């Protein structure tokens, strides 16, 4: 049986850890509220953008544009959005697993555009090729940041260095459920677009013309997806951390009560032993 002193030391160490996890939970709760309302505000833009591009593509199936057909290169770019800080449960490792576990994405074909330090660590350790690391964006994602990232990726797409663009991020469903997602951005998935069709019988005109409009709108579409993903990822990160810290706090609680019990038992045991010794000593003198 461990001594009273050991148990006491262990208990106080767990108590101070619990205080930290409790504080972290409170901090991420506040951050989550902020990130959540931010995510809700970006939603209309993102939805409308998606809707417009969908209906545009649904009606213009025969346009031969690289954004729709894909590049010649077999290289695939994946924009990986993770967090800079850990202690968020499975948040980061889920994203990494999403990429390592996908059989269509072969390691040698991938070019990783990482946002978030944990993704960089996880993927470079497994031998993935990291092209760029924009982890600073994660601190406070803004639309210009997303636009800069988008420009970088689309430039290499335009140069033919990459043939397809994917985006891996954590979708924020609600406060308690977040889902790691991998979506293909370019070439645009026309099959998925056909579902959203209500106003498609309106004959739409394009200015300057369809192809040029597409040329200008698709980058904005990609940027808005990046931005939406960044904002959702921040919300998911804080949600995941809040949950992780919540369970850490309650685990600490369990351990503390367990240790308190052991401590009291040990204390009682030592008192009993001392008494027995005294009585035995007294008996011996008589």
């Amino acid at each position: 049986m461990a001594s009273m002193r050991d148990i006491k030391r262990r208990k106080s160490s767990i108590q101070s850890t619990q205080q930290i996890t409790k504080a972290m939970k409170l901090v991420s709760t506040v951050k989550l509220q902020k990130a959540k309302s931010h995510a809700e505000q970006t939603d209309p833009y993102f939805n409308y953008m998606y809707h417009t591009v969908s209906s545009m593509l649904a009606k213009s199936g025969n346009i031969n544009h690289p954004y729709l057909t894909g590049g010649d290169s077999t290289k695939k770019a994946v924009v990986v959005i993770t967090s800079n800080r850990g202690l968020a449960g499975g948040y980061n490792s889920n994203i990494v697993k999403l990429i390592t576990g996908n059989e269509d994405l072969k390691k040698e074909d991938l070019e990783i555009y990482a946002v978030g330090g944990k993704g960089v660590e996880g993927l470079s350790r497994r031998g993935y090729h990291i092209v760029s690391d924009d982890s600073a964006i994660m601190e406070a994602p803004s639309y210009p940041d997303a636009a800069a990232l988008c420009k970088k990726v689309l430039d290499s797409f335009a140069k033919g260095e990459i043939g397809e663009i994917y985006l891996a991020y954590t979708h924020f469903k609600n406060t308690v459920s977040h889902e790691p997602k991998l979506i293909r951005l370019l070439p645009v998935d026309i099959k998925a677009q056909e579902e959203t069709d209500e106003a498609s019988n309106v004959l739409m005109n394009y200015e300057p013309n369809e192809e040029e409009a597409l040329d200008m709108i698709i980058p904005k579409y990609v940027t808005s997806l990046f931005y939406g993903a960044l904002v959702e990822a921040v919300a998911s990160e804080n949600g995941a951390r809040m949950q992780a810290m919540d369970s850490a706090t309650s685990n600490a609680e369990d351990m503390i009560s367990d240790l308190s019990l052991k401590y009291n038992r040990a204390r009682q045991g030592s008192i009993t032993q001392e008494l027995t010794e005294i009585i035995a000593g007294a008996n011996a003198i008589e």
Partner: protein
Amino acid sequence: MADNMFKVEIITPDRVFYTGDADMIEFNTVQGQIGVYRNHIPLTTVLEPGLVTIHEGDVQKVAAVHAGFAEILNDRVTLLAEVAEWPEEIDVARAEAAKERAEQRLISKNAELDIKRAEFALHKALTRISAAEYR
């Protein structure tokens, strides 16, 4: 809603900037200024930095809009703008500074890409300054 009114929405990545009814809206596209009434033909067009004027009866609302595109349907106009600002929100001093910087860059003449960007920046700054006059 009266017969000649239609719905206007201006949406930016960070917020729903404006939503309401109008009987005419003017804005700047890559092909030039256009004014839209109800029952316009369906049109999707790309925006240039410029002023958006929303006419609602006798009331006029002006805002500065930079980059994005517009979708016009017969009873609805939606502007998806990367940046949109009311005149009250514009920092004139900053816009003036941006204008000077852009002009400097245009005078110094570097690579092709730089000129395009500087022109765009100048355009944006000028839009902001002219929008601020509507305060």
